[in-house]
């Protein structure tokens, strides 16, 4: 928490360059730390946690007729809150205790969410490893594998290829449409922009099963095409397009208006401005928008379930015949009563999580910046350039210091 803005001298005091030893400088002002954690705080939390854990164990496991890890944790938490309150009351006034209690509740809900994510990833990872450690899981399809065959036979190659193809096609459809709609809302605007935005927001939350049902109703029932990867990618397009639109609109709006004005002042037309100024400036954010849409699309199960059809065979063609994808593969095999099949389902889940994680991390790495904001390397390069030009202008040597070799940049 920073609620005080001290002058920069004070803020950079201890961390700044060491003062020369010759003069005796006035002691640099120290920034006052508000809040922070004292030893008492830590010990109170730790004491309440251990005390309540012990009490919980005695009550839950020995005295009362309860069972199950879930109930144990809930009881522990409730006892912990009570214990923390009592410990707090011993040292602080009621208002402060309430403040601390709320802080603890806030911390614990944050930790709960983090724990849930870690648990999901960890659980799917550990269950999935059983089948995913055999390389054949990534190189074979399920065509010649029966329900009781060992895990060294059969795999999810068909589903992986199907997922990638369907995702690729859906991206191909959704991205141009989505970005164009976003540019429409932010650059053209007008009376239509607001209803479009409201509808895009509503469409983001469209139940995925309805998207599947729609494509099933149009492509397969009305026009009589076979279920195929292409139909699935159309359903995915309906899901991905609003996500791309919304995320893209946010970054396009962040592009500074001065850049647009500069382009217009140079005589650029609107489409030149959008194409050469706005979109390139927003590029990292747009890539993030696309990748987030992809991460969402690859995991959608219900649209694919209704439209792509299931097959255990390898099918490389999205337009011809049933084509399985990872979510559908999981859905189909974990419902079977065979341990091997469930293990394969989990391994596919692990693969799917891996794909989502890779896409997600890509999006974060590319999209951490605001439009026009430079990466550290870019900023260094510009700084160097500026310094050299200043030096040249001042009549000094053109290159007052040695530039690092090219490879270091």
């Amino acid at each position, binding site marked *: 928490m920073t609620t005080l803005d001290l002058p920069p001298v004070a803020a950079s005091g201890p961390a700044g360059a060491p003062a020369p030893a010759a003069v005796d400088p006035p002691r640099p002002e120290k920034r006052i730390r508000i809040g922070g954690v004292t030893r008492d705080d830590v010990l109170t939390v730790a004491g309440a946690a251990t005390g309540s854990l012990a009490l919980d164990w005695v009550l839950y496991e020995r005295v009362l007729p309860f069972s*199950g890890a879930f109930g144990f944790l809930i009881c522990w938490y409730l006892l912990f809150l009570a214990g923390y309150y009592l410990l707090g009351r011993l040292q602080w006034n009621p208002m402060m205790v309430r403040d601390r209690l709320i802080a603890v509740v806030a911390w614990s809900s944050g930790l709960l969410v983090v724990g849930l994510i870690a648990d999901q990833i960890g659980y799917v990872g550990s269950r999935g490893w059983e089948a995913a450690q055999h390389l054949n899981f990534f190189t074979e399809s399920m065509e010649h594998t029966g329900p009781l065959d060992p895990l060294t036979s059969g795999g999810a190659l068909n589903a992986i290829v199907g997922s990638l193809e369907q995702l690729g096609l859906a991206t191909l459809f959704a991205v141009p449409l989505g970005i164009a709609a976003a540019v429409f809302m932010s650059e053209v605007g007008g009376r239509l922009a607001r209803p479009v935005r409201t509808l895009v927001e509503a469409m983001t939350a469209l139940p995925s099963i309805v998207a599947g049902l729609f494509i099933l109703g149009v492509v397969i029932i009305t026009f009589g095409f076979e279920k195929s990867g292409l139909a699935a990618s159309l359903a995915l397009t309906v899901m991905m397009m609003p996500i791309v639109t919304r995320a893209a609109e946010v970054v396009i709006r962040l592009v500074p208006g001065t850049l647009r004005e500069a382009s217009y002042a140079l005589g650029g037309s609107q489409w030149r401005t959008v194409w050469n100024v706005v979109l390139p400036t927003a590029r990292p954010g747009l890539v993030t928008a696309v990748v987030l849409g992809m991460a969402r699309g690859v995991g959608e*199960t219900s649209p694919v379930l209704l439209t792509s059809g299931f097959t255990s065979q390898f099918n490389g063609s999205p337009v011809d015949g049933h084509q399985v994808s990872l979510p559908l593969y999981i*859905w189909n095999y974990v419902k079977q009563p065979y341990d091997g099949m469930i293990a394969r389902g989990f391994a596919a889940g692990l693969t799917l999580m891996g794909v989502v994680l890779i896409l997600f991390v890509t999006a974060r790495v590319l999209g951490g910046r605001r439009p026009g904001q430079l990466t550290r390397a870019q900023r260094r390069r510009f700084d160097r350039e500026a310094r050299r030009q200043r030096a040249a202008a001042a009549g000094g040597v053109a290159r007052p210091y040695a530039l690092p070799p090219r490879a270091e940049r």
Partner: protein
Amino acid sequence: MTSAAQPAAPYAGAPRQPGHGPDQDVPRTVTAPATPGDRVFRGVLRLAGLSVFAIMGLIAFFLILRGTDALRTVGWSFLTEQKWQTAAHNFGIAAVLPNGLLIAVIALVIAVPVALGTAIFISEYAPVRLRAALISLVDLMAAIPSIVYGLWGLFFLQPRIIGFVRWMANHLGDTIPFLKVRIGDIGTSYTSSTFIAGVVVSLMIIPIVTSLSREVFSQAPQGEREGAYALGSTRWGMVRAVVLPFGKGGVIGAVMLGFGRAMGETIAVALIISPNFKAITHILENGANSISALIALRFGESDALSLSALMAAGLVLFALTLLVNVLAGIVINRSRSGAATAD
């Protein structure tokens, strides 16, 4: 513009007359004729914008078109019939719709406190260095595929939560009727229930509610926060007096959006429940259903009337979620525009 600062106007707010003297400049409206290229460009963009209407319109149109058969067969009893026997022309959503809503409500009851706590934690309590990482993590939670939530719920959560469910049924069931389990006390009486489906769905809406609420919380004006501190408030006092009132509209919108998402959630619910077609009154008992799970589990039936009935059910789901989401969108937008004027 600069003209407001000029002393030339006799009194504040006096009408300025442009063109009278150099001191009274007013910005001139620049109009540039659109080039043909621009006109095409705008036309294309407008088409892209309109495609959203087209897609949503087509969805509604085709669901109605395909659902008419079923609706015509059973008429109004589609809304009042609980059973789903398409071959006997005896089907309706009177059981699946309320059961789906019940799952969504349970999900909200669990998710909203956790999500609000997390949102407050991230925007107010978490160390600044952790904040960006936590935001990413919540976004990641939203990106985890629903089938993975389903797997986790079915294989990890369900076996571990049964003890707690049994305890609730046996000890609270007598005082709180809807927690009672009326079927025999064996393990499977407590599985695949509305409650467990609701718990899993709650995990899926936590990230949505969290990220939207966090966004509005973090927009609470800094000046008022400092004001609260300066008046001697504790951090919780500040949160309660400044952040929560400021974010109320956004939180309501976020909860509605979460509700819409929970209603439409399919795969995790379909994996966990064992479908039945009675209106659920006891949420801990084995057996549950929702429109989306019904569609996912039954779409394989090949006769035209069954599919048509599913389309009709899908239409109801579509209309309901659209309504909830548009309302939520309006609430959120209103709270955002309020946020813009507050500081």
